[in-house]
């Protein structure tokens, strides 16, 4: 190898080393503080390429992204003395890396500090409201309050709390059983009601139709009797008109007809030959006996 290359390589080496020691880049998702002999001197929150003094300054990086805080579920007592198991989470970011570094040092420290801040705020705020308000009516408003208060508190630590959200709010197991039995009785009540309503409706319909049947038939009988009566009356009138012409003759004719109809083959009659019908029988053969 040529001797004249040696200085070139040396220069290159020195430049590279200097570059490494003096230049640093902060990526998009990071922020940094520059520490000079243990003393923070500068905060870098914009990504890009930066310079520092070699050797005596070094760089501490912190996440610039939104971070999550996830607490394990905890019981909170509501205003109406209900136990509520609250599982909440929070999104936060490091707002001031220098302050953050001074007070909590790293994310682990921040988590435990957030735990204190958020839980106490949550307990206090939820404790002033009823279960119904928490679950139903005011959830969003309450969480805004908790977020705001926690954020104010967390500023001391260079932290911004973006939000605190109740992920789950459930009843503890024993209360859950109560809810289940209440739900069950509620449903049983409904089922009974439906069945009774069915019975009610059915009875109404049946009795209504029975009523209609009775009315229909009675009306029909009524009309039928009237009609029959009319028939009878007219018949009587017709007879009376006809027979009224000669009542004596009618009597004769009708009597004879009655004889004809009532005296049949099985009728036995004991007669005296002196009766009117046999008048001639006696006179022509007076000795004849039976």
């Amino acid at each position: 190898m040529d001797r004249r290359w040696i200085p070139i390589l040396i220069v290159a080496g020195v430049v590279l080393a200097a570059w490494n020691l003096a230049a640093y880049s902060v990526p998009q998702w990071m922020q940094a503080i520059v520490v000079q002999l243990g003393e923070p001197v500068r905060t870098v929150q914009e990504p890009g390429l930066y310079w520092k003094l070699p050797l005596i300054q070094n760089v501490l990086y912190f996440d610039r992204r939104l971070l999550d805080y996830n607490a394990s579920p905890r019981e909170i007592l509501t205003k109406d003395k209900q136990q509520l198991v609250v599982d909440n989470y929070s999104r936060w970011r490091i707002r001031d890396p220098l302050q953050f570094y001074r007070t909590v040092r790293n994310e682990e420290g921040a988590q435990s500090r957030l735990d204190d801040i958020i839980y106490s705020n949550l307990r206090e705020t939820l404790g002033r409201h009823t279960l119904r308000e928490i679950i139903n009516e005011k959830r969003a408003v309450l969480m805004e309050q908790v977020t705001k208060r926690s954020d104010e508190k967390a500023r001391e630590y260079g932290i911004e709390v973006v939000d605190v959200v109740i992920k789950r709010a459930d009843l503890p197991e024993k209360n859950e059983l109560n809810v289940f039995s209440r739900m069950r009785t509620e449903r049983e009540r409904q089922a009974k009601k439906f069945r009774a309503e069915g019975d009610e409706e059915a009875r109404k319909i049946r009795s209504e139709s029975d009523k209609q049947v009775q009315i229909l038939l009675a009306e029909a009988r009524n009309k039928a009797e009237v009609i029959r009566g009319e028939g009878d009356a007219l018949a009587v009138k017709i007879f009376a008109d006809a027979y009224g012409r000669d009542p004596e003759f009618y009597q004769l004719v009708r009597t004879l007809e009655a004889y004809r109809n009532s005296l049949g083959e099985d009728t036995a009659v004991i007669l005296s030959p002196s009766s009117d019908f046999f008048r001639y029988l006696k006179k022509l053969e007076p000795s004849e006996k039976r």
Partner: protein
Amino acid sequence: MSERNQGPWSGGGPSDPIEILTKVWEDIRRQFGGGTPGRFSPWLIVAILVPLYALSGIFIIAPDERGVILRFGRVVREADPGPGYHIPWPVEEVVKPSVTQIRKAEFGFRTVDAGPPARYRDEDVEALMLTGDENIVKLQFIAQYKVKPEASGATDFLFNVRDPQETVRAGAEAAMREIVGRNEIDNALTEGKERIQEDAQLLLQQILDRYDVGLEVATLKLQDVDPPDQVSDAFKDVISAQQDKERLINEATGYANDVVPKARGQAAQLLNEAEGYKAAKLQDAAGAAQRFIALHDEYSKAKEVTRQRLYLETMEEVMGRMQKIFLDDFAGTQVVPYLPLDQVLKPRPVEVVEPAAQPATQPTAQPGRR
């Protein structure tokens, strides 16, 4: 920057590019063309490495990706699918997240086996939720989301939130529980589903936008909304009670439909019978009256003779068929007459109407037969 990077190498040797190239060429010739072997020139290495290094800046973005180019860690631009070039490392680099892919998260259940047949496992801790009326409902849903197509979507997705997936999960759970908390159980189980779904999707999008996570919710869909297993039989019984109610009403209506028309028919029958009776009565009466009048007309012409004739005709007919016993008035007054009526009348058959039948039945109608 690139010039500063090249600095170390442009410091020493010849500065004229043509001179450099000539020298490089000579080196190559000497190295391979059989010149003095063993003579190694750094220029050769430079000549190979510099183009290679420059080429390393070429990148290709696949159709489902979007490129984000970082210069010293700072986002400088985004690149659409296709080939592109960035200043080689360590100045610039490219990150290529998949942006068209639709990501899916499941809540309240997990797919154990995508199948077919698909198998699922319930996650009751996630699925059970408190409703606004302090009931508990079991609700399973999925969320599908993707990187926002807008210009900054990929950058936001990559760099704004540490754990975007988990953020969606937590946000979706919170959103759904908040919405369900605003609804009553009956609503959540029945017609309110659509609404809950829409509201939860809207709320989740709000949450995600608050975080600037660069994601958009494509769909949020309720899968199953059921009463909890512990009380599902009671809920089912309500359904069957409803059906019982329907059934009872239907049966009663059926009964009504059966008896009322029948009664109408019966009523009509009664009326018709009555009408018939009336008409028959009138006709009979008219007929009899006519007959009497006709008879009477004839009678008026010869009263006494007709009287006699009617009497005798009738007696003839009546006497002709009757059984007769003559008893003289004289015999009756002498002693108490013995008259064995049953013997006298016996040969006569009983209740036989047709004269033709009489000879046939007469011999058999003996006392022993009785």
